């Protein structure tokens, strides 16, 4: 049987990162884009925890990951507030409908 090592975690986080970027680029629904941002943040979290376990041997990676989770929650709260304003103005959260600003 093979052992699960650092490289497996790095490949997983690269996959999650790519999915997050793809999600940001293709989704038109505001919540969908928010999910993309959260995926990218979580891919960084996987990296931090894996490096902390396999190469650093100290707990600071874990602590950073906890901070990032808190931050993601704060960002989600602000995102929802912005969408509520957006929705009450346009009755949709499809970001393509926001085309007030242009040259």
């Amino acid at each position, binding site marked *: 049987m093979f052992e699960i090592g650092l490289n497996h975690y790095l490949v997983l986080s690269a996959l999650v990162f790519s999915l997050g970027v793809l999600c940001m680029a293709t989704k038109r629904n505001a919540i969908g884009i928010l999910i993309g941002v959260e995926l990218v943040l979580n891919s*960084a979290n996987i*990296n931090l925890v894996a490096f902390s376990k396999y190469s*650093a041997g100290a707990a600071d990676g874990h602590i950073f990951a906890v901070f990032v989770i808190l931050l993601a929650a704060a960002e989600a709260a602000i995102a929802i507030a*912005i969408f509520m304003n957006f929705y009450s103005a*346009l009755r949709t959260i499809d970001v393509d409908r926001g085309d007030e600003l242009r040259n």
Partner: protein
Amino acid sequence: MPEMHPMIQLLLPEIALILGATAVLLGGLIPALRNRSALVSLVAIALALWLGARLSMLEIKDADAVVSLQHGPLVWYARLITLAIGALIIMVNRHVPDDAERGEYFALILFSLAGVTLTSVANSLVVLFLALELVSVPTYILIGLSRRDIAAQEAAGKYFFLGAFAAAITLYGFSFLYGAAGTMTMFGENSITAKIASEGSIHDALVLVGLLLSLAGLAFKIAAVPLHFYIADVYQGAAAPITGMLGFVPKFAGFLALIQLLGLTSWKYGDEIFWLLFAMAAVTMLVGNTLALMQHNIKRMLAYSGVAHSGYMLVALVAGPILIDTGRAPLRDGIAALLFYMTAYGIMNLGCFAALSFFRKPGTDDPDESAETTDDIAGAARTHPWAALCLAVCTLGLMGFPAHRRLHGQALHYLLGPVRRR
């Protein structure tokens, strides 16, 4: 000053700012105290400035024992100009928010300013990342609060998504830097800098990937090409006084973080990063100025002018400090030019938007109908003579006339130095 833990001592100005912001936030709940919000914010900034000045003269015992924070000329200078321009930002914004939102509005500005100074104080990737987020998260809300119409909500949404995405990419880069060095500490003993210097691992793939991803995320903060596309929309949507803040606060934080990151390699980063920054500076200057010429909307024009100015400052960053001393924060040559330029740019840019906030579309007095195009402000010298004079002086200043000229020359000189050496 009484005996305090060195960590608290190093952070006293930031603690003053955060306490001031909390007081303003809570005071905003009480109708009788709301009108004092701007005044209390200014008092908090003055207190932070005084504490910062005291600290810079004081010998702090055991300061090097605090591994996650640093102190030195870069920190003192960053605090001084952030807080001085921050006071101007508060004054320019004093009439913007609705009565019920005065508390939140000024508290958010104070939080954002505390984030900028923390960016320079950070000596750990955790503190650096959280400081950068403390800068940008309040600005997303401020844009939405600054005006009532759909355009402001759309600008807040765009800025939030792209900003959160850029922050996530920066974080992904930081995770690789942590993986390469096995520590979060940036400078000093047993730090990322020491690891990179001792192992000569500048070309180590992990360090390179980490630096490139972090640079990409920070390029968004300073609005460097190719991550400049959002800026015109955001500037156009937000109210003019808050736009003046957006031109300085995130940009300064981004450049401070860039100085810290390039410092991780002791400024001996490899050719890949050198040519990337070089090309970014050149293209940013070119594209920013060209796009600015094509705009009719004044705010969009100033937004692209800000892009071009980021390019000038990138030139100084590429030049970097030529002589590296052993201290923690390099503060000379290219970096000194950058910080000086940033100060001048921050004041001139804020002046432009402050003046712009006085002008309305012809024939209206409604604050939501602010002047948009160059035609709207034709004849402004007759209706608002002082604001028009201020706008003229500040735009001339942004053009580099006349005092800036020497600065441009200096930055170019420092840029050519390293190129010749190669």
